[in-house]
Every structure is written in C-alpha cells, then in structure tokens.
C-alpha cells in the first residue's frame, strides 16, 4: 500500500514486517525515529519482539549477537559514533557468521561533532565482514531490508548486513513509499533457520579462539561467503522484483550510461540529484551517465567493469575520505577498472551535511571533462 512516510518510519515498517524476535538499540541522532517507532510497535503489541533497552551501542550489538547465536532473527540500528562504539562487536558478529541486520542512518564522524550526513561511518567499517547496501530513496531503504535479511540468512552466505541510508536527507524526509503487506513479506522471507544454535540441551561454543593454525582459514571462509553473496544478492533482488515489481538484481545500477563518455559514480541519496543533473546535461548534448553502487560490500568489481566499458572518464563522488589517501569508493572503482585505461577522478563532496546541488554535479562533470580531479569539491577557502 502506498503511504506518505518519513524515511525512518518506512524503515521501521519494513523491519516490523521482517518479524525480528529481538531488537536491541540505543537511540542516536538521526537514527532515533526508527527505534522509537519500533519500541512503540512492540509496546502496542503490533510486533511480537523483545525490545531490549541498553545503555550503549556496544551493548546493543552484543545483545543482538547473543540473541542471534541463540537462533533469533535480530535487528539494530545506529549511526556515526554509535557505530564506532560497536566496532569490536561488528568483527565478532561477522566472524561468528551471525546474520544480524542493522540499519545505518549515515552521519559524519566526529570530531568536530556533527550530526549531519556523510557516509564516513559505515565506510570506516567496510573491512569488518559485513555486507553494506546503500539506498537512494526511502522506497529503496524499505525494500533493502527484506532483501538484506534474505541474503544474510542464506546458508551460502551467513553474514551480517548493514542497510545504509543518508541521515536526515532520507531519515527525516517524507516520501510516498509502497509498503508491502505482512503476508506478502512472509511469503518472500521465511523464518530464519540457523545453522548453529546455542542450546543448553545440545551444548556448543561459538566464536572460539583459533590458533595460527586455524585463524587464517576462518577469515578465508568469510571472504568466500562474501564472494558468494554477490550472486545470492542478485538472485534475491530479482526474486523481489518478480514479487513486488521493483527489481534489485543489480549490485550496481546504470542511468543513461549506454552511450555515455563521462560516467559519474555515487552511492546513496546523492544519486537522485545526479540523475536530475544528468537529464539537464543530456538536454544540452553532453554524454553523461550515472553508475549507482548499491552494494559496497561485497564490492561488484566485475559489474562495474562491464557497466563502464565504453566510458573514457569516470568521476567518483565520495561522501567519505580515507585520510591520507582518497575517497574509498574511488579507490575501489579504480581497482575495478585497473588495466582498462579508463581515467578515474575522485571528488570528496558533501561532508558533514554540506549541501550538494545540481549545479555542483554539473561543475564536477565539467572538471572531469577537463581532467581536473582528486580534490575536495566545494571547500570554503575563505574559512581555511
């Protein structure tokens, strides 16, 4: 049913339909509205789940890890410094192969303290063994939760997943969102079937210590699962398309890329603005297209290589920076295109909630055309 919903509430509605049995979260701006809504649903008996109030994000994810190990479908949400506080547990969740799903309302990392949007928080956890899916709008943020659970719980994958959507820009914006019914979601997403369960009657240890003779093999297994997740995501996304009419079979999505000479590459809500800017540039005869990356982990290198085959220049819009190097997305795109001769230029944009408009996207495309890149775009030099 089509409803006008705030992004956070669209996510809460999606989570409710995924039937998590345990929710543990600590409120932090701009994630708060999601867990607030879920707490109300549990209190009003709309959702049959245990809502655990915890004193910090570290405890929130620890509770989720324990509940998941006991065989429950679990959920949490966080952002920025809250995600940083979960850092240690994030690695454990992935290493213990628990399919926890967590929403990240993307927000800048402090210091300086900033509650607005960029993607530095989730990007900083890219190496933890979690899958990371980025939503462009509230519809996609809603849909990616059903897909995330199904991919994470697939026995060929068994890895945790982050559904990332831009703080405030999406979390606090009202948009029409098509929310499927509980029955439709039940048919798409069966109950979680764990592989290993903590059970007093059949005792077992999880997350053992592994000596040098075993540790590397466990990391290898996670990497292999991550590779398998690419196909599982594509299959589940296609199945979602057949069921609900919105296709998510692509780990990447092209927009007016067919005959493009310059391709912009981006993740998340910025893609909507980029599409509008591309429409304008196309009207003026500029051959520009967009490649939207939906899955940052697993990283779709092959898909990117195929999608950008005919392009001579690639301009990556990074809402993050790996300080001392470049934007993380640009580095990975560069790796995917290594040896093809395609020039990849990086632009660090919109950090800490700095506005980015159509004219900025057009300016970036102009800079890329001239071969000027690898820089912060939109710096206020007067305050430096």
């Amino acid at each position, binding site marked *: 049913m089509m409803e006008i919903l705030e992004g956070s509430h669209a996510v809460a509605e999606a989570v409710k339909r995924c039937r998590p049995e345990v929710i543990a979260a600590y409120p932090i701006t701009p994630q708060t509205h999601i867990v607030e809504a879920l707490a109300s649903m549990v209190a009003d008996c709309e959702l049959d789940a245990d809502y655990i109030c915890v004193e910090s994000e570290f405890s929130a994810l620890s509770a989720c890890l324990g509940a998941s190990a006991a065989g429950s479908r679990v959920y949490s949400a966080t952002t920025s410094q809250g995600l940083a506080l979960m850092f240690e547990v994030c690695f454990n969740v992935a290493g213990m192969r628990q399919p926890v799903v967590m929403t990240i309302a993307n927000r800048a990392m402090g210091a300086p303290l900033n509650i607005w949007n960029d993607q530095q928080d989730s990007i900083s956890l890219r190496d933890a063994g979690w899958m990371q899916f980025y939503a462009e709008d509230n519809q996609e943020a809603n849909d990616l939760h059903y897909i995330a659970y199904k991919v994470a719980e697939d026995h060929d994958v*068994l890895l945790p997943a982050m559904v990332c959507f831009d703080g405030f820009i999406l979390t606090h914006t009202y948009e029409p969102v098509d929310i499927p019914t509980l029955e439709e979601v039940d048919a798409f997403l069966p109950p979680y079937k764990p592989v290993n369960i903590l059970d007093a009657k059949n005792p077992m240890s999880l997350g053992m210590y*592994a000596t040098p003779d075993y540790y590397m093999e466990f990391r290898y297994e996670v990497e292999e699962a991550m590779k398998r997740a690419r196909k599982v995501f594509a299959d589940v996304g296609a199945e979602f398309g057949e069921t609900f009419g919105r296709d998510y079979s692509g780990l990447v999505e092209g927009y007016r890329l067919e005959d493009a000479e310059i391709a912009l590459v981006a993740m998340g809500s910025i893609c909507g603005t980029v599409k509008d800017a591309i429409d304008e540039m196309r009207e003026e005869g500029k051959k520009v297209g967009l490649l939207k990356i939906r899955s940052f982990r697993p990283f779709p290198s092959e898909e990117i290589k195929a999608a950008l085959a005919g392009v001579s220049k690639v301009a990556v819009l990074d809402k993050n920076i790996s300080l001392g190097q470049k934007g993380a997305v640009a580095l990975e795109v560069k790796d995917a295109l290594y040896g093809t001769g395609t020039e990849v230029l990086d632009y660090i944009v919109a950090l800490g909630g700095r506005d980015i408009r159509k004219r900025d996207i057009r300016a970036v495309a102009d800079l890329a055309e001239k071969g000027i890149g690898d820089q912060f775009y939109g710096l206020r030099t007067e305050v430096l």
Partner: protein
Amino acid sequence: MALRVGCAAPPGRAHDNKTGSWRVFKPVFKYEKCVKCGLCEVVCPEGCVYEREDGFYVADYDYCKGCGLCVEECPVDDIEMVQEEK
C-alpha cells in the same frame, strides 16, 4: 578437520586443541642431574609433563606451550629451553 561455520565447536574440544605451530621454544629434559623430584610435573600449567616408567619425566610436545616454567623451577637445572626447528 573441516571448519564449522562461525567458529562453532562442541564441548570437550579443548582437548583436541594441540599447541600447533606457534611455540617458539620448547623444554628438553637432559636426564643428567635429575633427582626425580617431580616438580616439573607439578608446575606445568598445561599438565603435559608426565612420569615415564623409569621414573624420569618428559613433556608431551603436542600440548606444551613452551612457557618455560618447568625449566625455571627444576632445582638441578636439568631442563633446557631450546629453539624450535621448523
């Protein structure tokens, strides 16, 4: 042994966990001055020193961590730490 998903293991597996490849030094019992006091057996935190039929003691290298406690405590310095050869 095939790895189980998520570092999962049934109970009792600690006994299967041999020291493996990471030990750098191991104790070698010389039987030159040994007075058969049995202190090495008592102090070994891994419980891997045992008495042979002839009354002398020996370490089970499958489980010895190479902590060197037996060497430190032997009253007649009859045990020596030597570097592992790999």
